[in-house]
């Protein structure tokens, strides 16, 4: 028996009313989605696909929608469900009159935790995100990257079971990004469910187990990262030295030969690949790497979106 979904959405429809002259825009159009606990989800889609609206409906930020939306088996309107959720909004802003430490304390208390409990956690998160030195500095003096780190700490300090991260690495330097990836790994290990909404598809590919692609308010594709990045049938081979008559050496084996700086790419099944290796070795060519090429998430994403538009 499969476990109860942590997020369950059925027939979710949200239409933003336009102004007097603007037409009403459906942001979510009968969306069905069910998410079980303990995975890291990439929430992808082009601009206006409904990603942020979905998160906002789940977090009670957007009223007047139709359909069914539940978290932890409770209606999303119930505050009890939201106390188990952490959220890092895109381009978030904290009150500038607070220090970093006060932000974590107050926002943690708003999630129902006691001040004493939060104080015991604050330094851990500030240190982990490398902003402990600025703990007692007003947020107005934080750089964008520091604010982003503080936002992540705010989303996690009350130890939520479900976390929504909207562009979590936006404005963060490479070292900070690595730290954030590490934290997401730890969340996964501890059984926390994480939704990541990011335009950096390479990052999503690196971090996420599963990916959900939305388009025009509907679920377009859903699956593991492997499902969405299938093998292309192409094999990339790096070899040395590369003779000028390489194409002739491999004549009649595989198809779609294409040479590049370090080697070549060829479309070959296992049998053909063995033949390629034999011929190269027979010519005394050293084989450095053989790697089957998969579709990247970005390619898969673009293919899905353009395919749907056609």
């Amino acid at each position: 028996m499969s476990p109860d979904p942590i997020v369950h959405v059925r027939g979710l429809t949200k239409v933003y009313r336009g102004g007097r002259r603007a037409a009403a825009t459906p942001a979510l159009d009968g969306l069905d989605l069910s998410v079980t606990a303990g995975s890291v989800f990439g929430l992808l889609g082009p601009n206006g696909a409904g990603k942020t609206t979905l998160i906002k409906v789940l977090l009670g930020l957007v009223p007047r929608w139709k359909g069914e939306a539940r978290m932890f088996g409770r209606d999303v309107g119930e505050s009890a469900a939201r106390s188990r959720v952490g959220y890092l909004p895109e381009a978030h802003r904290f009150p500038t009159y607070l220090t970093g430490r006060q932000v974590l304390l107050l926002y943690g208390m708003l999630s129902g935790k006691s001040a004493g409990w939060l104080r015991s956690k604050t330094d851990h998160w500030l240190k982990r995100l490398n902003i402990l030195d600025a703990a007692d500095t007003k947020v107005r003096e934080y750089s964008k990257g520091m604010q982003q780190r503080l936002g992540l700490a705010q989303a996690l300090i009350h130890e939520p079971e479900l976390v929504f991260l909207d562009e979590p690495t936006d404005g963060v330097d490479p070292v900070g990004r690595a730290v954030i990836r590490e934290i997401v790994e730890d969340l996964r290990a501890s059984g926390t469910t994480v939704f990541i909404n990011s335009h950096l598809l390479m990052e999503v590919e690196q971090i996420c187990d599963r990916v959900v692609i939305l388009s025009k308010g509907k679920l377009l594709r859903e699956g593991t990262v492997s499902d969405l990045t299938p093998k292309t049938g192409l094999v990339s081979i790096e070899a040395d030295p590369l003779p000028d008559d390489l194409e002739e050496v491999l004549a009649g084996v595989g198809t779609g030969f294409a040479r590049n700086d370090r080697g070549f790419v060829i479309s070959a099944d296992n049998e053909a690949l063995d033949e390629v290796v034999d011929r190269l070795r027979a010519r005394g060519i050293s084989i450095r790497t053989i790697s089957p090429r998969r579709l990247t998430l970005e390619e898969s994403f673009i293919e899905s979106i353009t395919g749907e538009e056609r």
Partner: protein
Amino acid sequence: MNTHTLRALFLDAIYQVLDNRVFRVLGVLILLPVAVVFCIGFREEELVLFFGLKTYSYDSLIESFSLSAASIAEARVMLIENTADIIAGFLSGSLGMAVMIAATAFFVPRMLEKGAVETLFHKPVPRLWFFLSRYVAGLVFVALLCTALVSGVYAGFLVSSGYSYGGVFWELPGAVYAFGIVHAVSMAIGVWTRSTPAAILLSIFFFVGNGCVHTAWSMKESFTHDREAAEDSDTEGLSQLLEGLSVALDTAHFILPKPGDAGRMVESLRGNEPQKNRSVRIQTNGESIGDASHLMGWDAAPRYSYVVSLLSTIAFTAGLLFLGWRKLARADL
């Protein structure tokens, strides 16, 4: 919602006030009148300025200010209490209110800015509580400043004049009450427009317009009362237009909140008569048209009753807060 959440909302209100630059500037500015009070010594025998640098006899003061005091002791008390009330009443006056509105009008628009609102409102706390916490923050802002001013004035007269005037603390609830009304206007406008300049301008516009309506009504009532007392039947000659205006003025007066009554209600609670020397008086055709404050009281007819004033003001203020909250509750954030 639990106690931690409520505490967080309260702490947030306090932090927001204490970090406010206008609050700090006002805090420093408050020290000026307080310092002046410390430099004025209303001694038993004479008025001593700057710790003895200059002295004035009460006889000359009574003559200069045409005080209607029966004795020097009474003149001294009158001077102290009037001076204290005028200084402490600054915050509930027009200029004080305008400064307070300008200092607190950003509370709601800033909370609703993109990026800030999502971070806050996704928490398991009803939107009403966030809205009310901003309202409370405004009241805390005024209460703290008023307490500092009133306490300073009280301490000043106690030290320099040896006179304990506890009545000055009555200015505190009056100022908070009056500000509570205007702050509700500012909050509602803040939710609807999400703009600080709009909240400031429209609130001040409302405050001034509201004051004009009540002043006009008060003058009309006094005029009507005086004519009735003189059994003057000329009022029958009032044109239909004037009667229509009169009804409109009555309607507006009873619907709109009455921050101006705060001072009079406080005076009444303290057991003092309304201070006519601080009320508006206009001379027309050689006759004096005053305000209707002398007609008002807790036991007066409903038209002039403080109870009606209080209830209609609370209803209006609560109504505004309700409209603001309703807009907020239904908003896509």
